[in-house]
């Protein structure tokens, strides 16, 4: 569907602290989130674009439709936990946390400026609400596993969600976690894999595979599904840009009774999703938009007025 056509006449107003309530329209939020990602990275002069845009609908679904959290009480003991294992998508997470009210949207402007709480990769020692520090790929699932185990031992009704990149599943440590989680039957653990089919550089084309024109295919989703199932996980597949479907899949995963299998949600996504010039382009893995491109993004996403989405 033409995303611009869905543009509401009156863009969503930001409250003074930038937060919006959980009642907001989720597609609209994702659209705003995408622009904030592009804007913030352009503002700071560095950062990732492809991964955060790929994960934006997943993040919005989680923070506005799934996670039981209290943004004004980030350490609330009974909160659900979310870990962004693909830590290079930090800016996507920050944007959604800001929209959800963890901190003012204006603070996004401090991204990457040294003393900022918004570091290039998530730093749990700086920003309340982050459950783990990530950036070296492959480690987040283990932390989520530990939380899920501990929560069960403590009798907490907490659910732990971990988001991984599909490229990231090449790390051996991911599979160490996958095995142990299945052994312990951690139904309170859900891995969401952002299956956009692209990583940073990726793989050379197979001989005679010129037509695919894409040397950056990390894994075939089907094989990932088989592997996870073989290790004892329950696997759901979902369109990672369909916010309602994501919320439903997460609810399904949460429904798994304690002692049952952990769930993996394979979310089919498009890297760089949301902008015609970034979609499916590996070049945008970590690129900064020029002023011209920011303007184009603004138009495509339906924000004509400069400064409207800040920072």
């Amino acid at each position, binding site marked *: 569907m033409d995303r611009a056509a869905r543009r509401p006449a009156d863009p969503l107003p930001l409250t003074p602290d930038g937060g919006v309530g959980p009642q907001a329209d989720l597609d609209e939020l994702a659209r705003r989130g995408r622009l904030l990602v592009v804007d913030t990275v352009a503002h700071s*002069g560095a950062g990732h674009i492809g991964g955060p845009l790929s994960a934006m609908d997943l993040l919005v679904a989680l923070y506005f439709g799934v996670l039981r959290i209290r943004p004004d009480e980030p350490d609330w003991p009974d909160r659900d936990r979310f870990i962004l294992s693909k830590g290079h998508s930090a800016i996507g997470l920050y944007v959604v946390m800001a929209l959800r009210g963890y901190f003012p949207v204006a603070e996004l402007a401090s991204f990457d400026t*040294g003393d900022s709480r918004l570091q290039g990769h998530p730093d749990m020692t700086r920003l309340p609400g982050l459950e783990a520090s*990530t950036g*070296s790929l492959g480690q987040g699932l283990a932390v989520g596993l530990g939380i899920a185990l501990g929560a069960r031992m403590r009798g907490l009704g907490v659910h732990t969600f971990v988001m991984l990149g599909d*490229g990231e599943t090449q790390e051996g440590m991911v599979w160490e976690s996958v095995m142990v989680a299945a052994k312990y039957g951690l139904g309170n653990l859900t891995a969401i894999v952002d299956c956009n089919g692209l990583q*940073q550089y*990726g793989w*050379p084309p197979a001989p005679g595979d010129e037509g695919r024109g894409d040397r950056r295919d990390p894994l075939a989703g089907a094989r990932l599904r088989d592997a996870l199932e073989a290790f004892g996980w329950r696997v759901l597949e979902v369109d990672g840009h369909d916010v309602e479907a994501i919320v439903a899949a997460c609810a399904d995963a949460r429904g798994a009774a304690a002692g049952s299998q952990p769930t993996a949600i394979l979310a089919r996504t498009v890297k760089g999703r949301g902008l015609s010039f970034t979609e499916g382009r590996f070049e945008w893995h970590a690129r900064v938009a020029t002023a011209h491109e920011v303007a184009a993004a603004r138009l495509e996403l339906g924000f004509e007025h400069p400064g409207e989405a800040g920072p």
Partner: protein
Amino acid sequence: MRDAWAETLCDLAVENHDLLVLDGDLATSTRADRFAVAHPDRFLQMGIAEQNMVGVAVGLATLGYVPWLSSFAVFFTHRAVDQVRMLVAQTHANVKIGAAYAGLLTGFTGKTHQDVQDLAIMRAMPGMTVLAPGDATECVAAVRWATGTPGPVYLRLARDAGPDLFDDTYLFEPRRVVPLRDGSDVLIVSTGMQSARCLAAATLLETMGISAGVLHVPSLKPVDAAAVAEAAQRVRLVVSAEEHTIIGGLGGLVAEILSEREPRRLVRIGIQDTWGESAPNAFLLDRHGLSPERVAERVVMEFSRTAEPSRAAGR
């Protein structure tokens, strides 16, 4: 510097058919993507799986290949350190570690990606050659030397380009320390791209009436300890400066040398047992005392506090 690394590998591979590049999905950052274009059949993509990549390189080396690895320094010295220790260092495998984005200046990635412990870790590996070139010319020379010399090499590569220290006549020799400037009051010992900043600091110091020499250490292991001690002998204060924690890297090395051979007061400039942050380079260099201005300031302060060594009076 990463450009120099990649271009040299492309050049060398024309002659040396055993040269391979293995990448951990970072070729576009490390610039190994140039090698992938120039020599596609000798570019092996290993994916985001560094531990496996190191093991594979060791296997290839047993067949006479000369594998160069491409990833960020942290992923070798921290993620795959067991594999580097067990499979590479202990067996003296002919594996070359191209440790890109080492140090503090990693382009807004923050402390997760800043490798400021690598020299300490790699220096502690018996048999590992540890190199940290100061500019692109020296990098080219070091890559050529490492490719042609059997045994494991850890090559510390900076992300950004920097000022030139050397011209084409420069000859790289492992062990050798390189005097960049003479000075009679203070000796600044530095490594990697920090040497250029120290040279600039020495120029500033001259205007403040302090004569500071700069000794560049491109090879932390092996190192010509006698030459370091000899240079230290002629000054009142020795300062080490590095884009690395002051523990166990160059500062540690100089401390070891001085305490064994030539007792002198040593001030170690570098990361003070803390973590970095994501910020512009200027911010980071300033925060950690590594900009020319901050190095000069620190030298002035410490020099005034350092008494003439009693032995020196008799010389």
